[in-house]
């Protein structure tokens, strides 16, 4: 015991010497202990780091990428309100590309598509590149006093005597009173800790995306946008070969992000084409390609996204000395017409920081004190939206949603607009399309009712 102690002191002093800077700005105690270690400088980690550092905590953020954002990919749009709650007016200085003022939803069947468009003067979301936004958020945390250390891949959470005491990377360990897990969707650390089992295909979707450089003026012209105005466009149906999921098109400052999301539980059984070729089909779709035909692909990538809502959440989001935020907690929402990941992640990081501050005031980062995080989440828009999503899983498993509905919409429109001799009535067109899509009237009404209820 005594020897152990000596060894510990020796090791600590060694680390202490290594860690104390000559200028003495950071004053750490001899245990090489931080108040808070955050794993991952994504939206969740950086938001938490920003809040905690601002409160005066000694915060260490460990990021595996060479720069924050280098490992991150999203559809293309962020909802602003949750971020505004965190950053206030500073958000205006974030790398915002365009404020979304045109929303479009299309049903695709083969080369035909039917669209609903919504235009507005006001905007609640913006487009950006996630690597840029993540860099900005990490810098905000840095300005607030957090220390960001890149190029460090954390490979374990250290759990000892009923609590989390630090993290490890290779032969090194660092310790903290509180560890915040913001590792992202693959959550290898939570697996290592035994808090979750390996991800199942039904719990996640894969997204693949191309960013196509086009030039600012061409985007404004071709998408009918004013300067700094953006479009968010979601497409369903044939565009994913009727695999549950969808395609997206977002306009950035001088580029367009196009891509698709495939629900892996279905994709493993139904995929017929390499996913990159499905993205290429979207790029070359006869009704869409002229929008970016002369553009240049700047980047291509893929990423997983949580899909299962609360079913993917670990049993606990708080342990002694430990909180789970963002994608690692399964805290992302996808209801087809709305995908919310970045703002959700940031907001859960923000709530985790709030809970940590409260717990600290109550006397420490015990599970009891940190549990407030879970109730804060439950009372927030995040959780309410997430639970509403639960039923969407059934809809995914109902082939009618992703196959029959787009076929119905496109079929009806085709019958109405493609005129041979006699002008068809809308009701007749609808019924003809409905029969072609293999939908009974009652079943359709029932699907519609369920969909409306979930939305």
């Amino acid at each position, binding site marked *: 015991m005594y020897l152990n102690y000596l060894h510990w002191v020796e090791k600590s002093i060694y680390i202490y010497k290594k860690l104390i800077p000559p200028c003495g700005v950071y004053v750490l105690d001899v245990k090489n202990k931080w108040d808070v270690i955050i794993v991952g400088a994504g939206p969740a980690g950086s938001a938490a780091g920003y809040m905690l550092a601002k409160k005066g905590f000694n915060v260490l953020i460990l990021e595996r990428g060479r720069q924050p954002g280098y*490992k991150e990919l999203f559809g293309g749009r962020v909802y602003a309100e949750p971020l505004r709650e965190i950053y206030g007016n500073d958000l205006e200085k974030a790398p915002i590309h365009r404020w979304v003022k045109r929303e479009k939803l299309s049903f695709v069947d083969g080369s035909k598509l039917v669209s609903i468009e919504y235009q507005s003067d006001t905007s609640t979301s913006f487009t950006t590149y996630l*690597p840029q936004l993540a860099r900005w958020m990490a810098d905000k945390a840095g300005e607030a006093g957090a220390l960001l250390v890149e190029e460090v891949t954390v490979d374990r959470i250290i759990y000892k005597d009923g609590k989390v005491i630090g993290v490890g990377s290779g032969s090194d360990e660092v310790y903290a009173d509180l560890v915040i897990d913001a590792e992202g969707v693959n959550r290898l650390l939570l697996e290592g800790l035994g808090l979750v089992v390996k991800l199942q295909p039904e719990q996640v979707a894969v997204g693949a995306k191309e960013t196509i450089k086009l030039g600012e003026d061409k985007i404004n012209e071709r998408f009918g946008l004013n300067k700094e105005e953006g479009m968010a466009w979601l497409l369903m149906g044939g565009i994913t070969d009727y695999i549950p999921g969808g395609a997206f098109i977002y306009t950035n400052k001088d580029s367009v992000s196009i891509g698709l999301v495939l629900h892996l539980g279905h994709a493993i059984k139904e995929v*017929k084409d390499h*996913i990159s070729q499905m993205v290429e089909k979207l790029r070359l779709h006869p009704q869409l390609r002229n929008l970016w035909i002369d553009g240049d692909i700047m980047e291509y*990538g893929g990423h997983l996204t949580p899909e299962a809502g609360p079913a993917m959440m670990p049993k606990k989001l708080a342990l002694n000395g430990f909180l789970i935020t963002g994608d690692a907690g399964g805290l992302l929402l996808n209801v087809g017409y709305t995908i919310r990941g970045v703002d959700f992640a940031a907001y859960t990081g923000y709530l985790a920081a709030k809970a940590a501050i409260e717990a600290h005031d109550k006397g420490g980062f015990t599970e009891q004190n940190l549990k407030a995080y879970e109730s804060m989440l439950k009372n927030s828009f995040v959780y309410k939206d997430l639970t509403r999503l639960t039923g969407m899983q059934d809809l995914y498993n109902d082939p009618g949603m992703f196959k029959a509905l787009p076929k119905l919409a496109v079929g009806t429109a085709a019958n109405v607009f493609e005129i041979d001799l006699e002008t068809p009535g809308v009701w007749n067109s609808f019924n003809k399309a409905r029969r072609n899509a293999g939908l009974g009237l009652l079943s359709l009404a029932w699907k519609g009712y369920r969909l409306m209820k979930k939305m």
Partner: protein
Amino acid sequence: MSQDQGKTEVKPMKIDDILQRDVWDVDLEPHITVDSSKCEKCPTKPCLYLCPAGCYILAGEKVVFSYEGCVECGTCRVICPMNAITWHYPKSGRGIMYRFT
């Protein structure tokens, strides 16, 4: 490098050509290992279609894996029906470097 490298074609581009747009600092050791003996018994091989970077290709009957172009999404690990994949993140900040995603 050649003059034509910058062209985005108006026909489907192969994944290898699309990936020319991406940047890696490839890790010196593979961060993913695949037990290819298990692949032989795999009936569906979904990795061939769903790995966004096309790291898994079929050569004859065999699944051949290369880690260099991996974008670290984790899809293969989740979908592999044979549990044949040992998956880690690269070290030292290496691997994919996204900029416009």
